[in-house]
């Protein structure tokens, strides 16, 4: 028998044994019932057999290409090393090149604009969510992808934005449009406030501190009933009105849809411009090597705080959209899972890649909406995805996100895609 198949059978047996008590048995000692679910075990055994086979195959391949790479590196030390593209890499590159074609973007835009006209309010609302996650992913991508600061508490800024609108509206009657910039600025301010104490922290400690920050913010909201309304949250948050016009539920959802489209487009443009600017390069230098970055004359303090602030800003903005969309906020909507979901988008999409974020949001947020069976398993798959991505493709789906500067700039310097 093929040794790989044998190994996979062993793995399947091991995982069956491992999961047996939890997967097969369900015990209620008060009612004195024992539920045996043998079909689950079959599923696990077959599933882990295939997963293990494929997993091993890719592990071996990764190892081989790494060995070849070092061998090549030694052999042709003098010449430039040819970049070896794997087939998957090629497909992804082509896919991402496709998104650069102008006609395609135009068609996409028309589709996005036309979408609510032929769809139910429910569908429209799903696409609003998707676009919200695109903006959240882009915002977090500034912090994690570009500046390399692993932030597990991004959901806290999202919460701050949502609550800012809810409270401003409840207490002072502020509308959507005034609250929007205030919430963005407030979230950015909190970003700086979190940023200052953690400046000197090492990467993994930073991750834990941001996680703690998120939990603190959520728990404070949960417990501070008098001011923040505690676990029951704040209801009756209005949607934006259209020049004083009161729209119905459907109408206002469509209106919110277009607002979200505009915000998303602005976010994409702004973040793309930042990416290829002086500060964007400083972020990436910071990510690559903090010591060298500082030796290049870059103020790492300022650079980190800008990343925290500009990242948090977008979470604040999307928070307002969230509050308006669901017309209700409570702390339970902003658990660690929310941060994990947004971080999944960045991890899958690829550090620093805008197209990657969009693609990843479509896969992670939109796909489960239409494949109901996926929804139940969504978080499980997210967890598995994180591990798989780190083991096989830590750079994300779209890795070659580096901007190619036009080497012979025309007088007006046409900007390339990033």
């Amino acid at each position, binding site marked *: 028998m093929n040794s790989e198949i044998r190994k996979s059978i062993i793995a399947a047996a091991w995982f069956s044994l491992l999961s047996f008590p939890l997967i097969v048995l369900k015990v209620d000692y008060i009612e*004195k019932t024992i539920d045996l679910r043998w079909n689950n075990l079959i599923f696990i055994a077959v599933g882990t057999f295939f997963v293990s086979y494929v997993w091993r195959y890719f*592990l071996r391949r990764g190892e081989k290409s790494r060995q070849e790479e070092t061998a090549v590196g030694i052999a042709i030390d003098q010449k430039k090393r040819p970049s070896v593209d794997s087939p998957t890499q090629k497909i992804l590159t082509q896919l991402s090149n496709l998104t650069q074609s102008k006609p395609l973007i135009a068609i996409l835009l028309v589709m996005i604009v036309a979408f609510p006209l032929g769809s139910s309010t429910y569908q429209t609302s799903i696409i609003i969510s998707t676009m919200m996650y695109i903006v959240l992913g882009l915002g977090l991508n500034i912090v994690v992808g570009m500046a390399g600061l692993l932030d597990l508490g991004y959901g806290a800024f999202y919460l701050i934005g949502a609550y800012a609108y809810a409270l401003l509206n409840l207490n002072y009657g502020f509308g959507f449009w005034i609250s929007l910039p205030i919430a963005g600025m407030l979230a950015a301010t909190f970003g700086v406030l979190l940023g200052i104490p953690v400046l000197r922290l090492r990467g*993994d*400690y930073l991750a834990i501190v941001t996680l703690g920050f998120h939990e603190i913010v959520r728990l*404070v909201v949960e417990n501070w009933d008098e001011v923040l309304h505690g676990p029951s949250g704040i209801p009756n948050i209005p949607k934006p009105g259209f020049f004083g016009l009161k729209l119905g539920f459907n109408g206002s959802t469509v209106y919110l849809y277009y607002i979200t489209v505009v915000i998303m487009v602005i976010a994409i443009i702004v973040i793309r411009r930042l990416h290829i600017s002086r500060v964007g390069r400083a972020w990436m230098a910071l990510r690559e090597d903090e*010591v060298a970055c500082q030796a290049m004359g870059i103020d790492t303090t300022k650079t980190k705080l800008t990343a925290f602030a500009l990242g948090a800003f977008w979470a604040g903005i999307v928070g307002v959209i969230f509050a308006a969309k669901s017309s209700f906020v409570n702390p339970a909507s902003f658990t660690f899972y929310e941060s994990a979901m947004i971080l999944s988008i960045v991890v899958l999409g690829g550090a620093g890649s805008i197209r990657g974020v969009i693609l990843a949001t479509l896969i992670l947020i939109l796909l489960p909406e239409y494949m109901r069976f996926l929804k139940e398993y969504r978080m499980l798959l997210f967890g598995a995805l*994180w591990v798989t991505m780190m083991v096989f493709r830590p750079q994300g789906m779209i890795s070659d996100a580096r901007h190619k500067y036009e080497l012979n700039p025309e007088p007006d310097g046409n900007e390339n895609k990033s």
Partner: protein
Amino acid sequence: MTGTYDILSYFLELFSSGLTRGSIYALLALGYTLVYGVIGLINFAHGEVYMVGAFIGLIVAGIMSIMDYNILAILFVTLTFAMIYAAAYGFTIEKVAYKPLRQAPRLAALISAIGMSIFLREYVILAQTPDFVSFPALIPKPAFLLAIKNYLEPTEVLIILSSLTIMVLLLILIKRTKVGKAMRSISQDREMALLLGINVNKTISMTFMLGSVLAAFAAILIAAHIGQINYNIGFIVGIKSFTAAVLGGIGSIRGALLGGLVLGLTESFATGYFSSDYEDVFAFSILILILIFKPSGLIGTVATEKV
């Protein structure tokens, strides 16, 4: 007269519940510290091993109590099963999620660890239940402890004593045995350990298994004491125990013990004398303050990066 008595007994109550929490934190903090010492990774999934251990225990204890076994027998078998299974989970988690990333940047391994943690939570939700379930009360109240029951809760005393025993056993294991020596030498210098012919892979696996066994032990004790569990118990306890490990100086075994007890006691007194609403906020704030102002912990040294 009764006033003084009440004040004293309330103090003792808080003290013993603080020590109980503290010993649980310490048991888990040891897991974080051992793994961190050996491979420099914050094993984010450690809290989940604790949670899985509790669920395995629930199943074993449930079956046995339906079959009407003696409570001590149930406790013994439950502990054994939970610890063996937890060790197997710890071993597998390391092989799947961390081993391929030994050479990768620290953050990649951390992301993988968090992914593993999310996976395990969801796995338990899907395979068992998203709700709280009750856990049989397995800890006996031996006669000799009933004498002091006006001052201290007997089950708590038992938990504290047995945790201390198992920690002492661990200390002896690390000081005296070959595996313990291998663990210490790897944490000091991995390359050197390799040259000395230490089996690094085996030692790392052993480290994960040891930590997991301790976690399962803690899980069963506390589940049987509190009487209910759900899929989320590993998350908060995990983070608090990590706090304890950092508080004592991560990588240091004595530090983990100290940090666990200090955190447990402070938490207990703070919630007992002030307010319990902000219990978790309190723990997280300690974590953040320690990481920011004294990342080396109470006992421990800072490693500076060489330029």
